[in-house]
């Protein structure tokens, strides 16, 4: 069951144009996830980040600490809920956190896509999945 909270929904709200800007971010996160699967987490931490993000930088280090997914979820939720970000910036941080959880769980590329695409809005999620797949020269999911 997916929970819903009015205050959180308000905090996450942003324009369609802003949501569309998530597409390249999601593409980049997929590259990071591919690297994590191919090389492990430690080289990712050591390398210059592809995306300048505090959440990603420290989140990868939390993954390397081997926390359970449940603990990691709770900790990332505290970071997000107590931050002062709102609107698109907050949405972006949530997408980073979602990607971190997927990397920590060892999710496949397809699963990561399915988890991140809905952040662009339910209506756009499907077209995003198709667009991202064709970009990567793969079959639609």
């Amino acid at each position: 069951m997916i929970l819903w909270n009015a205050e959180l929904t308000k905090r996450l709200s942003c324009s369609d144009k802003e949501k569309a800007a998530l597409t390249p971010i999601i593409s980049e996160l997929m590259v990071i996830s591919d690297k994590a699967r191919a090389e492990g987490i430690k080289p990712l931490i050591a390398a210059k980040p592809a995306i300048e993000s505090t959440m990603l930088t420290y989140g990868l280090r939390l993954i390397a600490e081997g926390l359970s997914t449940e603990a990691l979820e709770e900790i990332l939720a505290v970071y997000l809920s107590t931050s002062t970000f709102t609107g698109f910036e907050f949405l972006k941080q949530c997408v980073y956190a979602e990607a971190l959880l997927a990397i920590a769980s060892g999710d496949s590329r397809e699963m990561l896509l399915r988890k991140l695409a809905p952040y662009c809005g339910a209506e756009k999620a499907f077209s995003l999945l198709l667009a991202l797949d064709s970009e990567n020269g793969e079959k639609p999911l």
Partner: protein
Amino acid sequence: MIINPLCRAHRTLYRRGRVPFQEQREGKQKTDERRPNEQKDIWPTIFGSNPRRFVVHLESAKRFVLAIRHYQMEGKDQLLATMHDERRKLHKFAYSIIASSSPVDYVRSAFEIAGLSGKAAAQDECEAEMLITGTQLALKNAHPIVIMRAMTAFLGFSVFDSVGKWLIEQFGHDEAKDEVLIIPGDLPEIIPAKSTDPGLVTQAVRLAGPQLVAAALAGCPRETIDYLKSLAYSDLGGILLDSDIRIARSRLSSEELSDAQSAFLELLTSFQNEPGSAMGREDEDWPMDVDEDLVSDISNLILEMDEHVLRSVISGLDPKLAASLIQAMEPIAHDRLFSSIASNKSKKILDALEASTPLSTNELTRRAQIFAQKVLSEIAPKNKTLGKSLPLPAKVRELLTSILSRE
């Protein structure tokens, strides 16, 4: 997914009667104070950046975590003593909840009923929120490292490094106390064989989760554990893994540890057929040579033999021969073999096993035949009577015949 824990965190932080998020933020943005040693707030939080309060909160978390560590090591009396000496209401109350083993779901309402939380605006309750989170995790018996990371998440990422350093100082010396436990299995050989593809090893670690990884490694030599740590864990992660391994060794039976090894091994080799995986290619080095029928015959022979006979044969067996036989045995047979011999003999066999190299099918067959002959000579009566067959159960006779008739 992050959305559910985020909803829960929002619901509790910004619940009824509290200042809405936007208003808090506007109020706090006027503050120009910086946290100690920080030039820039890399993760601004609703709790602001008053340096004095910030230091107090951090010290509060450290004190709580050290108290929980002593409680987990020494028991409830230690926590009650800490509670008695404690002056701060928040800590005292948190310890009392933990000492009474209250349900986790009750923690927040207990703090509220006691008037320690829920009265002020969210941004003024940083320490209470930290202690509620810490208490909930302590009741779930979480490791103090996890508790500290969760409590200090309320202070933002700017303390991440200093907290990590402090945790290593506090918890980095426990490894020396570890005893070695060896459960025979393939994992110690397989993991280094996958070294050319660390991504897949770390992927298997993530998929397995900390508990299975710890249980799988609990029966492995120290070198295997250290090797996996170097691939997949940070220094702090390594400390946490060692702790999980210690717990697995104390709580799980050797059969369960062996099952965990097998499960993790299966996960590692499940990547075999994935395109681009180097694992499949490396896997061919050893297992392809193993004759499954021979493995089955040796394992069944060990399982079917009378305990007295087995003990007698193994105790007189050269440890190197026993070690090579173990290479061609299923884990359940390892258990029976080791449970039937003295610990000093087990140690010699395990030492020989560590020093052994994979054998070809022919060599394994030859050693299995030597073993079968020793079994026969153990069963044979000392004063030979011609014309009488040996007192052998049919199944054992069949297995011995199968092994000895191999070419």
